[in-house]
């Protein structure tokens, strides 16, 4: 990208030294301000309001008060008693997001590798398919899995009808499933469970995983693989020693990006997670729009979520620049 080679003849049209220049400049400044107002101001407001104070009723006013953060980290009644309720919610947010993003990347990696070995035309068709499923709203995906996992018409019914439930009972594995909370006395049961939540979340980001891994895998030099093959390496050895090391950074970067994306998942968690296992996103919603109506506390929770996301994005950035140099 030789952007710096743009020479004097390419200067902006209105650089006729005079009112034209300042007009162009003003427009540019106004545009910058508008973009900043739209993209940055909302985040700044969340941060500012997180220090605010709730007023009895549904209102609040600006203040500089750390009560909300204290309530988040040690509970409202500190130092008399300590409550880690909200830290646990953050813990659940991270737990679901980590497992779901790792599952998505691990299963998307071989898929994407095979995809890049196809012809250009086949790749285009697959990409249209993946992009279409990727753009589907969280609401629909949850709706689909809700039907699939529901006791009456979904997979549990399939388990029952095909005799799989009986087989599980005969093998003695049914009790294990019950211990995991994945079965009722009579049949398997997937709602509500960590399993259903993680499954839906990894489904949500799976197409993203493919799209994010795609550039790295499709730029992989085929002669490298051919060379390893002609030297007698078995396919699995090639993948392990050539492919994975050269896309390691892309793999880690993808996990981080998907993780950040999943931190804020709302619909899947409200539908599939048990009440005691719900996340910070649900609690933010409750505080800002839902039952508890405490905008400053909701903002404080949002700031914690934001900071978690930024830390991980910075780590990802550091990793990729370090990898670029090395």
């Amino acid at each position, binding site marked *: 990208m030789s952007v710096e080679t743009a020479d004097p003849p390419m200067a902006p049209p209105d650089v006729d030294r005079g009112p034209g220049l300042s007009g162009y400049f003003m427009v540019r400044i106004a545009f910058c301000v508008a973009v900043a107002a739209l993209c940055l101001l909302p985040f700044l407001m969340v941060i500012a309001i997180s220090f605010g104070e709730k007023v009895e009723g549904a209102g609040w006013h600006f203040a500089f008060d750390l009560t909300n953060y204290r309530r988040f980290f040690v509970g409202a009644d500190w130092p008399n008693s300590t409550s880690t309720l909200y830290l646990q919610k953050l813990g659940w947010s991270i737990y679901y997001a980590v497992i779901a993003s790792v599952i998505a990347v691990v299963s998307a990696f071989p898929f994407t590798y095979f995809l890049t070995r196809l012809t250009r035309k086949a790749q285009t068709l697959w*990409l249209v398919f993946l992009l279409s499923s990727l753009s589907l709203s969280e609401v629909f995906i949850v709706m689909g899995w809700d*039907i*699939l996992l529901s006791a009456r018409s979904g997979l549990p019914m399939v388990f029952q009808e095909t005799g799989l439930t009986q087989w599980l009972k005969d093998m003695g594995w049914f009790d294990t499933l019950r211990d995991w909370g994945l079965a009722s006395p009579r049949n398997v049961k997937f709602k509500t469970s960590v399993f259903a939540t993680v499954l839906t979340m990894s489904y949500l980001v799976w197409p993203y995983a493919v799209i994010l891994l795609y550039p790295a895998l499709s730029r992989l030099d085929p002669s490298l693989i051919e060379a390893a093959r002609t030297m007698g390496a078995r396919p699995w050895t090639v993948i392990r020693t050539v492919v994975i090391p050269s896309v390691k950074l892309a793999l880690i970067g993808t996990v981080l990006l998907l993780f950040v994306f999943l931190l804020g998942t709302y619909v899947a968690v409200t539908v599939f997670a048990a009440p005691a296992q719900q996340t910070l996103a649900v609690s933010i919603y409750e505080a800002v729009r839902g039952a508890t109506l405490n905008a400053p506390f909701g903002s404080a929770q949002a700031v914690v979520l934001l900071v978690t996301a930024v830390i991980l994005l910075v780590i990802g950035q550091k990793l990729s620049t370090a990898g670029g140099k090395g």
Partner: protein
Amino acid sequence: MRRLHWAASLFMGLAAVVVLMPIVVVSAAALNGGRSMAFPPENPTFDRFVEFFVSEPVWTTALWNSIVISVSAAALSVLIAWPVAYWLWRANDGLSKVLAGLAAMPFALPPIVFGVGLGFLWSFTGALGQMWAGVLSLAALFAALPLVTISIGLQSIDKALLEAAATMGATEGVSFRTIVLPQTIPYTMSGFFFALVLSFNEFIVMFFVSSSSYATVTLQIFNSLRNGFTPTMAVAAITFITVSVVAFSLVARFGDLPRLMGADTTRR
């Protein structure tokens, strides 16, 4: 390397089945004659389609809102992204990098935080619950997508062509109209369609900025969730899938989709 091992093809096929499973189930549920989301459908009928597109005002209004908001938001996001991408390409200075970073930020961070912030912003300016505020919100959220596609398009322009034009006395305005614009139109359209489809399906930000004073289709579905799923919602799902497939097929038809997604173009 052209032919895949059968196990690889099997794996890809299985992945496609899993991706399709919930989509197929939801779509099939639209054919239910009754009010329940049975699968396989009971008393198959197309009545739900009539309800969704014609006779139920709740759904027709929501659909119209969705169309108006997503088309305007996508157009606006392209209008925001173009100058940012252009400055980044031409100047590549500190200010343009900061600006590009700002425009990409809402998309990179958890949308629920951006949604909460926009809710505050609009309630301060008195625009909470106005449709134009919703349009601005989605445009800001998805400006990152046309920003990326337009940048890819601009980088594909041969600098020698621009230099030749300049030597022959073309001003920046002229070379912009005759070289830059025509070559980047497919990329601009792709960015538009990406933003369009994602705005159409957006839920969480819309939820905070609409403040229940109007509903898009996704919001309407979420509002109806507490009464359980109904087959009419499934028609909405089919509509969404159709819009996405059509939009991305258009992108693939008029642009180079593998290249847009970052494939190496030097290799076939």
